[in-house]
């Protein structure tokens, strides 16, 4: 994504130009929605994306153009979506089974992988998504989640091991 139009539109949007914000939305929404799908699951991806863009609109004054707009937005999206994930976990019964998730609407991507990700325990799913799907380092994940690097590594290894088991079970059915 070119920085030029993003920077110009971000400045216009920060001054209240919703049309400019719309152009930013159309250029960046797919990546944010993919992240929301991975972290929250397909059924909450749309709401999560909306929340990210509403927060971005309100926080545009803090965007100084020191990094690319896409980088700034992605960082904001991770923070907003992690909070949403935490909130939705508090709302939901903790006991999520694969059978329950099988009834959830898929997203036409890799449904087995999505269901297996959704079945990972709290705190593990976000580490796997951020490290193995979004290329965050353990240092960055540790700072985002307020945990140490070694805890982040431990959760990643636990998560991969659980995913292997979950995917193997599904593929045997």
């Amino acid at each position, binding site marked *: 994504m070119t920085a030029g139009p993003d920077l110009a539109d971000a400045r216009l949007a920060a001054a209240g130009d919703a049309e400019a914000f719309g152009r930013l939305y159309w250029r960046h929404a797919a990546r944010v929605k993919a992240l929301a799908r991975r972290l929250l699951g397909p059924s909450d*991806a749309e709401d999560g994306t909306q929340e990210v863009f509403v927060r971005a609109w309100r926080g545009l004054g803090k965007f100084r153009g020191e990094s690319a707009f896409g980088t700034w937005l992605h960082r904001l999206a991770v923070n907003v979506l992690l909070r949403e994930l935490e909130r939705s976990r508090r709302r939901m019964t903790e006991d999520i089974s694969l059978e329950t998730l099988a009834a959830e609407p898929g997203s036409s991507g890799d449904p087995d992988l999505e269901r297996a990700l959704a079945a990972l325990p709290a705190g593990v799913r976000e580490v796997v998504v951020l490290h193995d799907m979004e290329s965050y380092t353990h240092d960055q994940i540790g700072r985002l989640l307020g945990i140490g690097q070694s805890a982040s*590594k431990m959760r990643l290894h636990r998560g991969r091991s659980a995913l292997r088991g979950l995917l193997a079970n599904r593929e045997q059915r």
Partner: protein
Amino acid sequence: MSDAWSDRLSEYLDGELPPGEARELELHLRDCAVCRHGLTELKALVARLAADPVLAADQPTSQEWQAIRRAISAPRRRWMIPSAIAAALAGLAIAGALLRPREPLRVEAAAVPAVYDRATGELEAILRDNKAQLRPETVQALEASLAAIDSAISQAERALAADPANDYVTRSMGQLRDARLTVLRRAVAVATGKEL
């Protein structure tokens, strides 16, 4: 079948094993077909995760943009709602602690007003008949919770009257009704000794 190395494969894959242990594992891999298979599966999994593409379903739609457009154009007063919800849910947590639930909080959709009205009406009637079974501090926490939720519901109703298409407030209303039902159901369970 797993052995002492099968839980270390992920660390090995990420280059996190100390050199001595990495060499030992490489020697072990020559003889252990299970660990070789595990490592192959792990590599495939990491590649599968990394390759998860941006899907057609991830592409933005005009409808989604319009919802965002409405949300960013709405007057700021609508952000009074989250604080009311936070207060209501804080009350819920206090009542929850006092009512000592044996099960995790179960939240169900209460999106249909008629169903919600009937359910709350029935629960309130049972609670009225069995209130004497609750400890005074429980009654106090219950009433505070319900008052906080009712106040947030009133605010949400006013916000919806002013802006009926506001998705955020509509969702919040559903959550508040869920919260009210959960509090009532839990209180009834404590008062009557029966889960509903």
